[in-house]
Protein backbone atom coordinates (compact mmCIF):
# COMPACT_ATOMS: atom_id res chain seq x y z
CA UNK A 1 0.00 0.00 0.00
CA UNK A 2 2.84 2.36 0.80
CA UNK A 3 4.19 1.77 -2.72
CA UNK A 4 0.95 3.02 -4.21
CA UNK A 5 0.94 5.95 -1.85
CA UNK A 6 4.47 6.85 -2.84
CA UNK A 7 3.46 6.58 -6.49
CA UNK A 8 0.53 8.90 -5.87
CA UNK A 9 2.75 11.34 -4.07
CA UNK A 10 5.44 11.39 -6.76
CA UNK A 11 2.73 11.71 -9.41
CA UNK A 12 1.36 14.70 -7.55
CA UNK A 13 4.79 16.25 -7.25
CA UNK A 14 5.17 15.92 -11.02
CA UNK A 15 1.72 17.38 -11.76
CA UNK A 16 2.40 20.39 -9.53
CA UNK A 17 6.10 20.65 -10.19
CA UNK A 18 6.16 21.04 -13.95
CA UNK A 19 3.89 24.12 -14.22
CA UNK A 20 5.36 25.44 -10.95
CA UNK A 21 8.89 25.37 -12.30
CA UNK A 22 7.83 26.88 -15.61
CA UNK A 23 6.09 29.82 -13.95
CA UNK A 24 8.93 30.34 -11.48
CA UNK A 25 11.48 30.45 -14.27
CA UNK A 26 9.50 32.53 -16.78
CA UNK A 27 7.34 34.66 -14.52
CA UNK A 28 8.95 35.10 -11.09
CA UNK A 29 12.67 35.10 -11.89
CA UNK A 30 12.24 37.74 -14.65
CA UNK A 31 10.92 40.19 -12.03
CA UNK A 32 14.03 39.70 -9.93
CA UNK A 33 16.11 40.45 -13.00
CA UNK A 34 14.10 43.62 -13.67
CA UNK A 35 14.72 44.64 -10.06
CA UNK A 36 18.42 43.96 -10.43
CA UNK A 37 18.79 45.90 -13.67
CA UNK A 38 16.87 48.86 -12.27
CA UNK A 39 19.89 49.38 -9.97
CA UNK A 40 22.38 49.30 -12.84
CA UNK A 41 23.72 52.12 -14.90
CA UNK A 42 23.09 52.40 -18.63
CA UNK A 43 26.22 51.95 -20.74
CA UNK A 44 26.90 51.58 -24.41
CA UNK A 45 27.51 47.85 -24.51
CA UNK A 46 25.86 44.53 -25.11
CA UNK A 47 23.82 44.17 -22.86
CA UNK A 48 23.47 47.92 -22.26
CA UNK A 49 23.81 48.02 -18.45
CA UNK A 50 26.53 47.65 -15.84
CA UNK A 51 26.81 44.55 -13.64
CA UNK A 52 25.84 44.94 -9.98
CA UNK A 53 28.41 42.50 -8.66
CA UNK A 54 31.95 42.74 -9.87
CA UNK A 55 35.27 41.14 -8.89
CA UNK A 56 37.84 43.87 -8.44
CA UNK A 57 41.52 43.73 -7.55
CA UNK A 58 41.91 44.91 -3.93
CA UNK A 59 44.90 46.64 -2.26
CA UNK A 60 48.31 44.91 -2.09
CA UNK A 61 47.94 41.44 -0.69
CA UNK A 62 44.19 41.56 -0.33
CA UNK A 63 43.38 39.60 -3.45
CA UNK A 64 40.07 39.81 -5.25
CA UNK A 65 37.14 41.67 -3.73
CA UNK A 66 33.48 41.34 -4.61
CA UNK A 67 32.11 44.80 -5.23
CA UNK A 68 28.36 45.49 -5.10
CA UNK A 69 27.30 48.70 -6.82
CA UNK A 70 23.72 49.84 -6.36
CA UNK A 71 22.93 52.75 -8.60
CA UNK A 72 19.86 54.68 -7.49
CA UNK A 73 20.11 57.12 -10.38
CA UNK A 74 17.24 55.58 -12.34
CA UNK A 75 14.89 55.91 -9.38
CA UNK A 76 16.02 59.47 -8.63
CA UNK A 77 15.21 60.36 -12.21
CA UNK A 78 11.64 59.10 -11.75
CA UNK A 79 11.14 61.73 -9.04
CA UNK A 80 13.18 64.53 -10.52
CA UNK A 81 11.74 64.45 -14.01
CA UNK A 82 8.12 65.62 -14.07
CA UNK A 83 7.40 63.39 -17.04
CA UNK A 84 7.25 60.23 -14.93
CA UNK A 85 5.16 61.57 -12.07
CA UNK A 86 2.69 63.12 -14.51
CA UNK A 87 2.55 59.89 -16.50
CA UNK A 88 1.86 57.78 -13.39
CA UNK A 89 -0.87 60.10 -12.20
CA UNK A 90 -2.53 60.34 -15.58
CA UNK A 91 -2.37 56.54 -15.98
CA UNK A 92 -4.20 56.15 -12.68
CA UNK A 93 -6.75 58.76 -13.74
CA UNK A 94 -7.37 57.23 -17.17
CA UNK A 95 -7.69 53.74 -15.67
CA UNK A 96 -10.06 54.93 -12.94
CA UNK A 97 -12.34 56.84 -15.33
CA UNK A 98 -12.42 53.90 -17.75
CA UNK A 99 -13.20 51.48 -14.93
CA UNK A 100 -16.15 53.63 -13.85
CA UNK A 101 -17.38 53.83 -17.45
CA UNK A 102 -17.10 50.03 -17.75
CA UNK A 103 -19.11 49.69 -14.57
CA UNK A 104 -21.75 52.14 -15.80
CA UNK A 105 -22.19 50.29 -19.09
CA UNK A 106 -21.58 46.80 -17.73
CA UNK A 107 -23.69 46.72 -14.56
CA UNK A 108 -27.08 47.29 -16.25
CA UNK A 109 -26.11 44.76 -18.93
CA UNK A 110 -25.07 42.12 -16.40
CA UNK A 111 -28.21 42.83 -14.38
CA UNK A 112 -30.48 42.54 -17.42
CA UNK A 113 -28.85 39.25 -18.46
CA UNK A 114 -29.10 37.82 -14.94
CA UNK A 115 -32.82 38.71 -14.91
CA UNK A 116 -33.48 37.25 -18.38
CA UNK A 117 -35.17 33.87 -18.78
CA UNK A 118 -32.66 31.14 -17.83
CA UNK A 119 -32.63 29.53 -21.28
CA UNK A 120 -31.69 32.86 -22.88
CA UNK A 121 -28.89 33.79 -20.48
CA UNK A 122 -26.27 31.57 -22.12
CA UNK A 123 -26.80 33.12 -25.54
CA UNK A 124 -26.85 36.68 -24.14
CA UNK A 125 -23.55 36.08 -22.30
CA UNK A 126 -22.11 34.53 -25.45
CA UNK A 127 -22.88 37.80 -27.25
CA UNK A 128 -20.89 39.67 -24.61
CA UNK A 129 -17.88 37.37 -24.83
CA UNK A 130 -17.82 36.91 -28.61
CA UNK A 131 -16.12 40.24 -29.47
CA UNK A 132 -13.40 39.37 -26.98
CA UNK A 133 -12.41 36.47 -29.25
CA UNK A 134 -11.77 38.73 -32.23
CA UNK A 135 -8.50 40.58 -32.27
CA UNK A 136 -8.07 43.23 -29.58
CA UNK A 137 -5.80 45.27 -31.86
CA UNK A 138 -8.41 45.28 -34.60
CA UNK A 139 -11.20 46.29 -32.23
CA UNK A 140 -9.11 49.27 -31.12
CA UNK A 141 -8.34 50.05 -34.76
CA UNK A 142 -12.08 50.11 -35.51
CA UNK A 143 -12.41 53.22 -33.34
CA UNK A 144 -9.87 55.18 -35.38
CA UNK A 145 -12.28 55.20 -38.33
CA UNK A 146 -15.18 56.16 -36.09
CA UNK A 147 -13.54 58.95 -34.08
CA UNK A 148 -11.29 60.64 -36.64
CA UNK A 149 -12.14 63.88 -38.40
CA UNK A 150 -14.51 63.09 -41.30
CA UNK A 151 -14.98 59.70 -39.65
CA UNK A 152 -18.25 57.88 -39.00
CA UNK A 153 -19.17 59.77 -35.85
CA UNK A 154 -18.30 63.19 -37.25
CA UNK A 155 -20.30 62.52 -40.43
CA UNK A 156 -23.24 61.25 -38.41
CA UNK A 157 -23.25 64.32 -36.15
CA UNK A 158 -22.82 66.60 -39.17
CA UNK A 159 -25.79 65.04 -40.96
CA UNK A 160 -28.07 65.94 -38.07
CA UNK A 161 -26.44 69.34 -37.78
CA UNK A 162 -24.80 68.85 -34.41
CA UNK A 163 -21.18 69.25 -35.41
CA UNK A 164 -18.82 70.04 -38.22
CA UNK A 165 -17.49 67.07 -40.27
CA UNK A 166 -14.03 68.07 -39.08
CA UNK A 167 -15.09 67.27 -35.49
CA UNK A 168 -12.49 64.94 -34.06
CA UNK A 169 -12.41 62.91 -30.86
CA UNK A 170 -9.44 60.82 -31.95
CA UNK A 171 -6.05 61.57 -30.36
CA UNK A 172 -7.59 62.71 -27.08
CA UNK A 173 -8.10 61.33 -23.58
CA UNK A 174 -11.80 60.79 -24.35
CA UNK A 175 -10.83 58.46 -27.19
CA UNK A 176 -8.63 56.51 -24.76
CA UNK A 177 -11.52 56.21 -22.26
CA UNK A 178 -13.78 54.89 -25.02
CA UNK A 179 -11.12 52.48 -26.25
CA UNK A 180 -10.40 51.01 -22.81
CA UNK A 181 -14.11 50.75 -21.93
CA UNK A 182 -14.80 49.03 -25.23
CA UNK A 183 -11.91 46.55 -24.99
CA UNK A 184 -12.31 45.61 -21.33
CA UNK A 185 -16.11 45.54 -21.05
CA UNK A 186 -16.40 41.71 -21.11
CA UNK A 187 -13.98 41.50 -18.15
CA UNK A 188 -16.32 43.70 -16.17
CA UNK A 189 -19.52 41.93 -17.16
CA UNK A 190 -18.31 38.35 -16.49
CA UNK A 191 -17.75 38.63 -12.70
CA UNK A 192 -20.73 40.99 -12.33
CA UNK A 193 -23.00 38.47 -14.03
CA UNK A 194 -21.58 35.64 -11.92
CA UNK A 195 -22.48 37.41 -8.67
CA UNK A 196 -25.84 38.78 -9.88
CA UNK A 197 -26.97 35.42 -11.24
CA UNK A 198 -26.47 33.77 -7.85
CA UNK A 199 -28.65 36.39 -6.20
CA UNK A 200 -31.80 34.83 -4.79
CA UNK A 201 -34.86 36.69 -6.24
CA UNK A 202 -36.91 35.84 -3.14
CA UNK A 203 -34.71 38.29 -1.22
CA UNK A 204 -36.03 41.10 -3.39
CA UNK A 205 -39.60 39.85 -2.92
CA UNK A 206 -39.03 39.84 0.83
CA UNK A 207 -37.71 43.40 0.65
CA UNK A 208 -40.77 44.45 -1.36
CA UNK A 209 -43.10 42.72 1.11
CA UNK A 210 -41.43 44.64 3.89
CA UNK A 211 -42.24 47.86 2.09
CA UNK A 212 -38.99 48.68 0.30
CA UNK A 213 -39.34 50.54 -2.96
CA UNK A 214 -37.57 48.92 -5.96
CA UNK A 215 -34.61 51.34 -5.88
CA UNK A 216 -34.36 50.94 -2.11
CA UNK A 217 -34.31 47.16 -2.47
CA UNK A 218 -31.66 47.55 -5.16
CA UNK A 219 -29.47 49.78 -2.98
CA UNK A 220 -29.83 47.69 0.15
CA UNK A 221 -30.03 44.15 -1.20
CA UNK A 222 -28.80 43.77 -4.78
CA UNK A 223 -25.89 46.21 -4.67
CA UNK A 224 -24.25 44.89 -1.47
CA UNK A 225 -24.67 41.29 -2.60
CA UNK A 226 -23.07 42.01 -5.96
CA UNK A 227 -20.12 43.80 -4.34
CA UNK A 228 -17.68 40.88 -4.87
CA UNK A 229 -18.51 41.01 -8.59
CA UNK A 230 -18.02 44.77 -8.66
CA UNK A 231 -14.64 44.50 -6.95
CA UNK A 232 -13.41 41.63 -9.13
CA UNK A 233 -14.63 43.27 -12.35
CA UNK A 234 -13.19 46.68 -11.45
CA UNK A 235 -9.79 45.19 -10.66
CA UNK A 236 -9.81 43.11 -13.86
CA UNK A 237 -10.28 46.37 -15.78
CA UNK A 238 -8.26 48.79 -13.65
CA UNK A 239 -5.01 46.86 -13.23
CA UNK A 240 -4.25 46.12 -16.89
CA UNK A 241 -5.61 49.53 -17.94
CA UNK A 242 -2.99 51.34 -15.82
CA UNK A 243 -0.22 49.73 -17.86
CA UNK A 244 -2.05 49.82 -21.18
CA UNK A 245 0.11 50.63 -24.20
CA UNK A 246 -1.76 49.89 -27.43
CA UNK A 247 -4.88 51.98 -26.72
CA UNK A 248 -3.12 55.28 -25.80
CA UNK A 249 -0.66 54.69 -28.63
CA UNK A 250 -3.40 54.35 -31.27
CA UNK A 251 -6.22 56.51 -29.90
CA UNK A 252 -4.46 58.94 -27.55
CA UNK A 253 -2.88 62.23 -28.51
CA UNK A 254 0.82 63.06 -28.19
CA UNK A 255 0.05 64.55 -24.76
CA UNK A 256 -1.83 61.48 -23.51
CA UNK A 257 0.97 60.32 -21.25
CA UNK A 258 0.54 56.84 -19.89
CA UNK A 259 3.15 54.91 -18.05
CA UNK A 260 3.05 51.92 -20.41
CA UNK A 261 3.90 54.25 -23.25
CA UNK A 262 6.70 55.93 -21.27
CA UNK A 263 8.20 52.53 -20.45
CA UNK A 264 7.97 51.50 -24.11
CA UNK A 265 9.72 54.69 -25.27
CA UNK A 266 12.45 54.44 -22.61
CA UNK A 267 13.14 50.95 -23.81
CA UNK A 268 12.73 51.13 -27.58
CA UNK A 269 13.61 54.77 -28.35
CA UNK A 270 16.07 55.78 -25.62
CA UNK A 271 17.43 52.24 -25.15
CA UNK A 272 17.81 53.01 -21.44
CA UNK A 273 17.19 49.58 -19.90
CA UNK A 274 17.83 50.57 -16.27
CA UNK A 275 15.32 53.45 -16.40
CA UNK A 276 12.77 51.25 -18.19
CA UNK A 277 13.25 48.68 -15.40
CA UNK A 278 12.85 51.30 -12.69
CA UNK A 279 9.64 52.49 -14.39
CA UNK A 280 8.39 48.89 -14.39
CA UNK A 281 9.24 48.40 -10.70
CA UNK A 282 7.51 51.65 -9.75
CA UNK A 283 4.45 50.61 -11.79
CA UNK A 284 4.42 47.26 -9.99
CA UNK A 285 4.57 49.05 -6.62
CA UNK A 286 1.51 51.04 -7.64
CA UNK A 287 -0.29 47.86 -8.62
CA UNK A 288 0.81 45.64 -5.76
CA UNK A 289 -2.15 46.55 -3.54
CA UNK A 290 -4.85 46.08 -6.22
CA UNK A 291 -3.16 42.83 -7.36
CA UNK A 292 -3.12 41.51 -3.78
CA UNK A 293 -6.80 42.36 -3.37
CA UNK A 294 -7.49 40.57 -6.65
CA UNK A 295 -5.56 37.51 -5.42
CA UNK A 296 -7.62 37.42 -2.23
CA UNK A 297 -10.92 37.76 -4.13
CA UNK A 298 -9.79 35.11 -6.64
CA UNK A 299 -8.60 32.83 -3.85
CA UNK A 300 -11.90 33.16 -2.01
CA UNK A 301 -13.75 32.20 -5.18
CA UNK A 302 -11.48 29.17 -5.58
CA UNK A 303 -12.24 28.16 -2.01
CA UNK A 304 -15.97 28.64 -2.56
CA UNK A 305 -15.81 26.62 -5.77
CA UNK A 306 -14.35 23.64 -3.99
Amino acid at each position, binding site marked *: MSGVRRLVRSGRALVTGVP*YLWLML*FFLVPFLIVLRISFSEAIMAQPPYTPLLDWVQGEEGEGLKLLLTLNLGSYLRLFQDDLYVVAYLSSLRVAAVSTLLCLA*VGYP*MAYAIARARPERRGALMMLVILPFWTSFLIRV*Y*AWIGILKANGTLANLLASIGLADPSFELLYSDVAVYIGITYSYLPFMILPLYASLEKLDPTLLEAAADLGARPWEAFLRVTLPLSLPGIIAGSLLVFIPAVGEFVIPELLGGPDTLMIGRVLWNEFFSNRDWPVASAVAIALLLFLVVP*IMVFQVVQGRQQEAGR
Partner: protein
Amino acid sequence: MRPLSLALWFGYAFLYVPIALLILYSFNESRLVTVWGGFSTRWYGELLHNEQLLDSAWLSIQIAALSATLAVALGTLAGLALARFGRFRGRTLFGGLISAPLVMPEVIIGLSLLLLFVAMEQWIGWPDGRGMTTITIAHTTFTTAYVAVIVQSRLAGMDGSLEEAAMDLGARPAKVFFVITLPLIAPAIVAGWLLAFTLSLDDVVVASFVSGPGSTTLPMTILSSVRFGVSPQINALATIIVLVVATGIFVASLLLSRRERQRRRDEQMALQGG
Protein backbone atom coordinates in the same frame (compact mmCIF):
# COMPACT_ATOMS: atom_id res chain seq x y z
CA MET B 1 -37.90 46.24 -17.16
CA ARG B 2 -37.91 48.58 -20.16
CA PRO B 3 -34.93 50.82 -19.28
CA LEU B 4 -33.02 47.65 -18.45
CA SER B 5 -33.45 46.07 -21.85
CA LEU B 6 -32.66 49.44 -23.41
CA ALA B 7 -29.34 49.41 -21.54
CA LEU B 8 -28.74 45.87 -22.74
CA TRP B 9 -29.31 46.72 -26.39
CA PHE B 10 -27.25 49.88 -26.07
CA GLY B 11 -24.44 47.71 -24.70
CA TYR B 12 -24.69 45.24 -27.57
CA ALA B 13 -24.74 48.10 -30.09
CA PHE B 14 -21.62 49.53 -28.42
CA LEU B 15 -19.92 46.14 -28.74
CA TYR B 16 -20.95 45.29 -32.29
CA VAL B 17 -21.38 48.51 -34.31
CA PRO B 18 -17.62 49.21 -34.56
CA ILE B 19 -16.99 45.68 -35.82
CA ALA B 20 -19.86 45.95 -38.31
CA LEU B 21 -18.51 49.26 -39.63
CA LEU B 22 -15.07 47.71 -39.98
CA ILE B 23 -16.51 44.94 -42.14
CA LEU B 24 -18.68 47.31 -44.17
CA TYR B 25 -15.78 49.57 -45.09
CA SER B 26 -13.58 46.66 -46.08
CA PHE B 27 -15.78 46.44 -49.22
CA ASN B 28 -15.32 50.13 -49.93
CA GLU B 29 -13.81 51.13 -53.25
CA SER B 30 -12.40 54.37 -51.84
CA ARG B 31 -8.99 54.55 -50.22
CA LEU B 32 -10.45 57.01 -47.72
CA VAL B 33 -11.79 54.31 -45.47
CA THR B 34 -14.82 56.13 -44.06
CA VAL B 35 -16.10 57.72 -47.26
CA TRP B 36 -18.24 55.29 -49.26
CA GLY B 37 -17.04 55.04 -52.87
CA GLY B 38 -18.91 51.96 -54.07
CA PHE B 39 -18.65 48.20 -53.52
CA SER B 40 -15.36 46.56 -54.28
CA THR B 41 -13.21 43.63 -53.23
CA ARG B 42 -9.95 45.18 -54.40
CA TRP B 43 -8.46 45.41 -50.87
CA TYR B 44 -8.84 41.65 -50.46
CA GLY B 45 -6.93 41.22 -53.72
CA GLU B 46 -4.16 43.53 -52.54
CA LEU B 47 -4.06 41.73 -49.20
CA LEU B 48 -3.31 38.44 -50.96
CA HIS B 49 -0.27 40.02 -52.61
CA ASN B 50 1.11 41.59 -49.46
CA GLU B 51 4.02 39.19 -48.90
CA GLN B 52 5.18 40.81 -45.65
CA LEU B 53 1.74 40.53 -44.14
CA LEU B 54 1.24 36.93 -45.24
CA ASP B 55 4.64 35.91 -43.87
CA SER B 56 3.94 37.48 -40.51
CA ALA B 57 0.48 35.86 -40.42
CA TRP B 58 2.02 32.43 -41.02
CA LEU B 59 4.60 33.01 -38.27
CA SER B 60 1.86 34.11 -35.86
CA ILE B 61 -0.27 31.04 -36.58
CA GLN B 62 2.67 28.72 -35.95
CA ILE B 63 3.57 30.45 -32.69
CA ALA B 64 -0.07 30.49 -31.57
CA ALA B 65 -0.60 26.76 -32.26
CA LEU B 66 2.64 25.80 -30.54
CA SER B 67 2.21 27.97 -27.46
CA ALA B 68 -1.48 27.07 -27.09
CA THR B 69 -0.57 23.38 -27.07
CA LEU B 70 2.18 23.90 -24.50
CA ALA B 71 -0.10 26.12 -22.40
CA VAL B 72 -2.83 23.47 -22.43
CA ALA B 73 -0.38 20.85 -21.15
CA LEU B 74 0.98 23.09 -18.38
CA GLY B 75 -2.34 24.74 -17.58
CA THR B 76 -4.21 21.45 -17.25
CA LEU B 77 -1.64 20.17 -14.76
CA ALA B 78 -1.79 23.44 -12.83
CA GLY B 79 -5.60 23.47 -12.82
CA LEU B 80 -5.64 19.86 -11.61
CA ALA B 81 -3.23 20.67 -8.80
CA LEU B 82 -5.25 23.71 -7.70
CA ALA B 83 -8.63 21.97 -7.83
CA ARG B 84 -7.81 18.52 -6.50
CA PHE B 85 -4.72 18.55 -4.29
CA GLY B 86 -6.07 20.58 -1.37
CA ARG B 87 -3.53 22.57 0.61
CA PHE B 88 -0.13 21.42 -0.55
CA ARG B 89 3.07 23.18 0.42
CA GLY B 90 3.63 26.32 -1.63
CA ARG B 91 0.01 26.51 -2.74
CA THR B 92 -0.31 30.22 -1.96
CA LEU B 93 2.66 31.12 -4.14
CA PHE B 94 1.40 28.73 -6.82
CA GLY B 95 -2.05 30.35 -6.79
CA GLY B 96 -0.38 33.74 -7.05
CA LEU B 97 1.75 32.63 -9.99
CA ILE B 98 -1.44 31.51 -11.73
CA SER B 99 -3.59 34.59 -11.12
CA ALA B 100 -0.93 37.32 -11.43
CA PRO B 101 -0.38 36.92 -15.21
CA LEU B 102 -4.13 37.46 -15.72
CA VAL B 103 -3.87 41.10 -14.65
CA MET B 104 -0.18 41.94 -15.05
CA PRO B 105 0.33 44.79 -17.54
CA GLU B 106 1.77 43.44 -20.77
CA VAL B 107 4.63 45.94 -20.85
CA ILE B 108 5.95 44.48 -17.60
CA ILE B 109 5.64 40.86 -18.79
CA GLY B 110 7.36 41.77 -22.04
CA LEU B 111 10.20 43.73 -20.48
CA SER B 112 10.88 41.19 -17.73
CA LEU B 113 10.93 38.23 -20.12
CA LEU B 114 13.24 40.03 -22.51
CA LEU B 115 15.67 40.80 -19.67
CA LEU B 116 15.50 37.14 -18.62
CA PHE B 117 16.31 35.95 -22.14
CA VAL B 118 19.21 38.37 -22.41
CA ALA B 119 20.58 37.26 -19.03
CA MET B 120 20.13 33.57 -19.91
CA GLU B 121 21.95 34.04 -23.18
CA GLN B 122 24.83 35.57 -21.23
CA TRP B 123 24.99 32.78 -18.65
CA ILE B 124 24.22 29.61 -20.57
CA GLY B 125 24.25 30.69 -24.21
CA TRP B 126 20.58 29.87 -24.70
CA PRO B 127 18.27 31.09 -26.23
CA ASP B 128 20.58 32.04 -29.08
CA GLY B 129 19.17 35.39 -30.11
CA ARG B 130 15.48 36.17 -30.06
CA GLY B 131 12.77 35.02 -32.41
CA MET B 132 10.13 32.36 -32.71
CA THR B 133 11.38 30.37 -29.69
CA THR B 134 11.38 33.29 -27.29
CA ILE B 135 7.96 34.53 -28.46
CA THR B 136 6.55 31.02 -28.04
CA ILE B 137 7.93 30.74 -24.49
CA ALA B 138 6.56 34.16 -23.58
CA HIS B 139 3.10 33.39 -24.96
CA THR B 140 3.04 29.99 -23.28
CA THR B 141 3.80 31.64 -19.95
CA PHE B 142 0.93 34.10 -19.88
CA THR B 143 -1.65 31.88 -21.60
CA THR B 144 -0.95 28.98 -19.19
CA ALA B 145 -2.62 31.02 -16.47
CA TYR B 146 -5.84 31.35 -18.49
CA VAL B 147 -5.96 27.62 -19.26
CA ALA B 148 -5.33 26.79 -15.58
CA VAL B 149 -8.22 28.97 -14.45
CA ILE B 150 -10.62 27.45 -17.00
CA VAL B 151 -9.63 23.86 -16.18
CA GLN B 152 -9.75 24.53 -12.45
CA SER B 153 -13.24 26.00 -12.57
CA ARG B 154 -14.46 23.04 -14.65
CA LEU B 155 -12.96 20.62 -12.13
CA ALA B 156 -14.39 22.60 -9.21
CA GLY B 157 -17.81 22.32 -10.83
CA MET B 158 -17.81 18.51 -10.79
CA ASP B 159 -17.42 16.34 -7.74
CA GLY B 160 -14.59 13.86 -7.47
CA SER B 161 -16.83 10.83 -6.96
CA LEU B 162 -16.17 9.29 -10.38
CA GLU B 163 -12.43 9.59 -9.84
CA GLU B 164 -12.74 8.15 -6.35
CA ALA B 165 -14.82 5.24 -7.67
CA ALA B 166 -12.16 4.45 -10.26
CA MET B 167 -9.47 4.61 -7.56
CA ASP B 168 -11.50 2.25 -5.37
CA LEU B 169 -11.72 -0.17 -8.27
CA GLY B 170 -7.94 -0.20 -8.31
CA ALA B 171 -7.06 2.16 -11.14
CA ARG B 172 -3.69 3.89 -10.89
CA PRO B 173 -3.77 7.72 -10.60
CA ALA B 174 -2.38 8.17 -14.12
CA LYS B 175 -5.03 5.83 -15.52
CA VAL B 176 -7.78 7.63 -13.58
CA PHE B 177 -6.59 10.89 -15.09
CA PHE B 178 -6.55 9.66 -18.69
CA VAL B 179 -9.70 7.53 -18.56
CA ILE B 180 -11.96 9.54 -16.24
CA THR B 181 -10.75 13.09 -15.62
CA LEU B 182 -9.48 13.98 -19.09
CA PRO B 183 -12.69 13.13 -20.98
CA LEU B 184 -14.72 15.03 -18.38
CA ILE B 185 -12.67 18.19 -18.66
CA ALA B 186 -12.28 17.94 -22.45
CA PRO B 187 -14.61 20.92 -23.08
CA ALA B 188 -12.51 23.08 -20.74
CA ILE B 189 -9.34 21.95 -22.50
CA VAL B 190 -10.77 22.80 -25.93
CA ALA B 191 -11.92 26.19 -24.67
CA GLY B 192 -8.53 26.77 -23.03
CA TRP B 193 -6.66 25.89 -26.21
CA LEU B 194 -8.83 28.21 -28.30
CA LEU B 195 -8.42 31.04 -25.79
CA ALA B 196 -4.64 30.56 -25.61
CA PHE B 197 -4.45 30.44 -29.42
CA THR B 198 -6.46 33.68 -29.74
CA LEU B 199 -4.49 35.49 -27.04
CA SER B 200 -1.20 34.51 -28.67
CA LEU B 201 -2.42 35.48 -32.14
CA ASP B 202 -3.49 38.84 -30.76
CA ASP B 203 -0.52 39.84 -28.63
CA VAL B 204 1.55 42.76 -29.84
CA VAL B 205 3.20 44.17 -26.72
CA VAL B 206 4.93 41.09 -25.31
CA ALA B 207 5.93 39.92 -28.80
CA SER B 208 7.49 43.31 -29.61
CA PHE B 209 9.76 43.00 -26.59
CA VAL B 210 10.91 39.41 -27.09
CA SER B 211 11.07 39.24 -30.88
CA GLY B 212 14.23 39.66 -32.87
CA PRO B 213 15.04 40.81 -36.38
CA GLY B 214 13.21 38.66 -38.92
CA SER B 215 10.52 37.51 -36.51
CA THR B 216 7.73 40.02 -37.00
CA THR B 217 4.34 38.67 -35.97
CA LEU B 218 1.03 39.64 -37.56
CA PRO B 219 -0.05 42.05 -34.76
CA MET B 220 3.33 43.78 -35.00
CA THR B 221 2.79 44.28 -38.74
CA ILE B 222 -0.75 45.55 -38.11
CA LEU B 223 0.38 47.95 -35.38
CA SER B 224 3.10 49.48 -37.52
CA SER B 225 0.67 50.05 -40.39
CA VAL B 226 -2.23 51.47 -38.34
CA ARG B 227 -0.05 53.81 -36.28
CA PHE B 228 -0.36 56.27 -39.13
CA GLY B 229 -4.13 56.01 -39.47
CA VAL B 230 -6.64 53.82 -41.25
CA SER B 231 -5.84 51.50 -44.13
CA PRO B 232 -8.44 49.59 -46.17
CA GLN B 233 -6.21 46.50 -46.31
CA ILE B 234 -6.36 46.24 -42.53
CA ASN B 235 -10.17 46.41 -42.76
CA ALA B 236 -10.11 43.48 -45.18
CA LEU B 237 -7.78 41.56 -42.87
CA ALA B 238 -10.03 42.35 -39.90
CA THR B 239 -13.04 41.00 -41.78
CA ILE B 240 -11.21 37.75 -42.51
CA ILE B 241 -10.15 37.40 -38.87
CA VAL B 242 -13.69 38.06 -37.59
CA LEU B 243 -15.07 35.52 -40.08
CA VAL B 244 -12.54 32.84 -39.11
CA VAL B 245 -13.08 33.43 -35.39
CA ALA B 246 -16.88 33.40 -35.68
CA THR B 247 -16.78 30.16 -37.67
CA GLY B 248 -14.34 28.58 -35.22
CA ILE B 249 -16.43 29.53 -32.18
CA PHE B 250 -19.62 28.37 -33.87
CA VAL B 251 -18.20 24.96 -34.83
CA ALA B 252 -16.57 24.48 -31.42
CA SER B 253 -19.70 25.32 -29.45
CA LEU B 254 -21.80 23.10 -31.74
CA LEU B 255 -19.45 20.15 -31.21
CA LEU B 256 -19.26 20.74 -27.47
CA SER B 257 -23.01 20.99 -26.99
CA ARG B 258 -23.54 17.83 -29.05
CA ARG B 259 -20.98 16.01 -26.92
CA GLU B 260 -22.58 17.30 -23.76
CA ARG B 261 -26.02 16.08 -24.90
CA GLN B 262 -24.55 12.69 -25.79
CA ARG B 263 -22.94 12.47 -22.36
CA ARG B 264 -26.20 13.30 -20.61
CA ARG B 265 -28.04 10.71 -22.68
CA ASP B 266 -25.40 8.12 -21.79
CA GLU B 267 -25.71 8.94 -18.12
CA GLN B 268 -29.46 8.60 -18.27
CA MET B 269 -29.19 5.25 -20.08
CA ALA B 270 -26.72 4.04 -17.46
CA LEU B 271 -29.04 5.10 -14.65
CA GLN B 272 -32.08 3.47 -16.20
CA GLY B 273 -30.13 0.32 -17.10
CA GLY B 274 -28.88 0.02 -13.53
